[in-house]
């Protein structure tokens, strides 16, 4: 990308106390089990009471994180809003389906149906701040957030927007958790979530959350990092293909693997999926400090957005929280590469640099 694009604001609601920008994972939350729940703030502080009552949880989370982000960036109305979500408004979908089935298609109310449209988070944000700009929602598994990043970079590059609010949100409902459990996604034996990455076994732990970022052409005193680039790899056929893609990606951004100061990896403690990361780091980044982050946020389709929040904070504060258990202390913190994959299907690379 030719333009320098800054992350000037962040807003993150997750299973960790991440909404508060004054602290940075000094206090962490752990659970004994296989399910992490995002910490709900007092939504009335962000959303008018008459709206809060009717809003589904994912929408409340998204709106609260977005508002926090905009305030953090000192931005009232961005030029565009682009979001990603893997399962969309699943709670309202289940609610409407449930009523439909229970009542045999009679006496139904529309609220849950209306809110089940997957672009509702983007739409409600636009509605609240009266933003008439470009408004897209990507709903594609482990590419949802990455597609939003890509689109935002294109819109900035082609001059159609100079400030863009991007974000991702995914909620975990009990039904959704149970269905994925039946599909063998989660660990069978409960563990201390913070130890998730220590001994990979079959299964990971479920998570949820939302993260928003305000991208802007202009740097300001609050700038966290530079959003440099993103790459998506669909069903790569070998470790070689991934490492080639990484080299090409870094090359395109005029960097070498040795320029990467920290590698953030989407390890999730699942022995079926973690080996890919190990193979790639051994080949391409043998000496680069690395760490995972899903022991903090759990696994979900847009977990990479938590990773980007983490990278943004690290680059701004120039320190790596202890809880990340980084393999060795990075001598510098200029460039962070996030490599994530969702169940081996959607692999992505996100490059962030110091502002």
């Amino acid at each position: 990308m030719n333009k320098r694009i800054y992350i000037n604001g962040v807003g993150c609601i997750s299973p960790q106390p991440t909404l508060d920008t004054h602290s940075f994972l000094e206090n962490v939350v752990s659970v004994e089990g296989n399910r992490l729940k995002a910490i709900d703030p007092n939504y009335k502080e962000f959303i008018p009471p008459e709206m809060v009552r009717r809003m589904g949880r994912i929408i409340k989370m998204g709106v609260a994180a977005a508002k926090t982000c905009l305030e953090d960036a000192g931005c009232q109305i961005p030029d565009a809003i682009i979001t990603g979500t893997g399962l969309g408004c699943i709670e309202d979908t289940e609610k409407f389906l449930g009523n439909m089935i229970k009542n045999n298609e009679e006496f139904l109310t529309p609220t849950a149906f209306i809110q089940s449209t997957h672009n509702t988070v983007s739409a409600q944000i636009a509605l609240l701040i009266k933003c008439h700009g470009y408004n897209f929602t990507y709903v594609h598994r482990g590419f949802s957030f990455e597609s939003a990043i890509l689109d935002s970079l294109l819109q900035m590059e082609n001059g159609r927007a100079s400030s863009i609010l991007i974000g991702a949100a995914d909620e975990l409902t009990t039904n959704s958790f149970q269905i994925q459990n039946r599909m063998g996604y989660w660990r069978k034996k409960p563990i201390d979530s913070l130890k998730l990455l220590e001994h990979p076994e079959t299964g990971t732990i479920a998570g949820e959350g939302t993260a928003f970022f305000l991208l802007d052409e202009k740097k300001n005193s609050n700038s966290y990092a530079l959003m440099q680039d993103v790459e998506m790899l669909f069903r790569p056929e070998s470790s070689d293909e991934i490492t080639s893609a990484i080299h090409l990606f870094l090359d395109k951004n005029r960097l070498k693997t040795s320029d990467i100061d920290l590698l953030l990896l989407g390890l999730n403690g699942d022995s079926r999926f973690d080996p890919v990361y190990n193979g790639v780091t051994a080949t391409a980044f043998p000496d680069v400090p690395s760490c995972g982050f899903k022991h903090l946020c759990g696994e979900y389709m847009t977990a990479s957005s938590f990773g980007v929040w983490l990278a943004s904070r690290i680059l701004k504060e120039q320190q790596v929280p202890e809880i990340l258990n980084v393999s060795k202390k990075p001598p510098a913190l200029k460039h962070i590469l996030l490599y994530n994959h969702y169940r081996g299907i959607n692999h992505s690379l996100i490059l962030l640099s110091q502002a």
Partner: protein
Amino acid sequence: MSKRIYITGIGIISAIGNNVPEVLSSLEAGKTGIGEITLFPTLHKGSIPIAEVKLSMEQLLTQAGQNGSEQFTRTTILGMIAAKEALSSAGIDDVNAFRTGLLSATTVGGMDRSEVFYKEFLGDPAKGRLKDIINHDCGDSTERIAIELGIRKLVTTISTACSSSANTIMFGADLIRSGKVDRVIAGGTDSVTGFTLNGFNTLMILDKRGCHPFDEHRAGLTLGEGAAYVVLESEEIVMKEGKQPLAELTGYGNANDAYHQTASSPDGTGAFLAMKKALNMSNLTPSDINYINVHGTGTENNDLSEGMALERIFDPVPFFSSTKSYTGHTLGAAGAIEAVISILSIRNGMIFPNLLWSTPMKELKIKPITKLLSRQNILHVMSNSFGFGGNNSTLIISKLT
């Protein structure tokens, strides 16, 4: 805008035809696809009409070249059929001869199977076949189609309600212009499900007579199903291949109404902004547009809002019609289905009528075209798709010069 974006292939399956020639034939003949519900059991059978693709799952599987060993959702198969036709229409044998992306849109995803799953599961979490739920999310149909077509370069899904597949076309063009890909197959697919039928019915915006777009006595929309894709290629690639494109994508725009989650603003702000953006990009003036394929769902709210926006921008308002009284409102597929219809309009010099219309709306000065017009010189067509969440999109497609 530097690079020109050409449309080199089209594919479509809908209630009025299972491929491009059949759809064109129905459009010319004024033959609607709206009829009785047959696809799934519902209380509303016989009272609410919808526009179904006239093929069973078995027939669709055959048409898509599947032998039945794998389970697909109806949404996926519809998309697969239309995407394959688009590729063939573009004369593409080796999809990876150039860097090719697949951008697909859907609102319901695999809901045709998921609702079967949930019926069992919600009563007992140990019940329900996992095969029926595993394809639920929106990204699934896109990935299944990408795998079938052999596309890996760039694969993603947009879901913005009724503007979804207009948005995939826009994003496709932006991707080509950025140099990230050389060409894309862009479009969308949606099947009708009990979920959407009941959802829209609860909103009380379904017309039990079938939709009457832009009519004073309109009472709502008619749901439809289908899929359509266009192949967009860069000017450079088209020259390299020595291909003759079908049309050109000359302008587009997306704007948000930011008024209400489901209703459009009375003066059509979002619609107005989207149309303006598209005109600006295409460097055309309102008087250059020869035909508008309106969103025209037949709801009281949309048609008024859209009509107001049209009258604000165009003076005079060009020929316009809604083709939703043929195809029904195909939600995530609507933008692409109507883009294909717009291309057929240009290539055949025809303006397809707005069926089921009799009385002009009292708030507007304008009336849609209600009889087929032929031998028209159609240079520029505007196609509107406005979705829930105030998501308003406009495409401008032009004849080759």
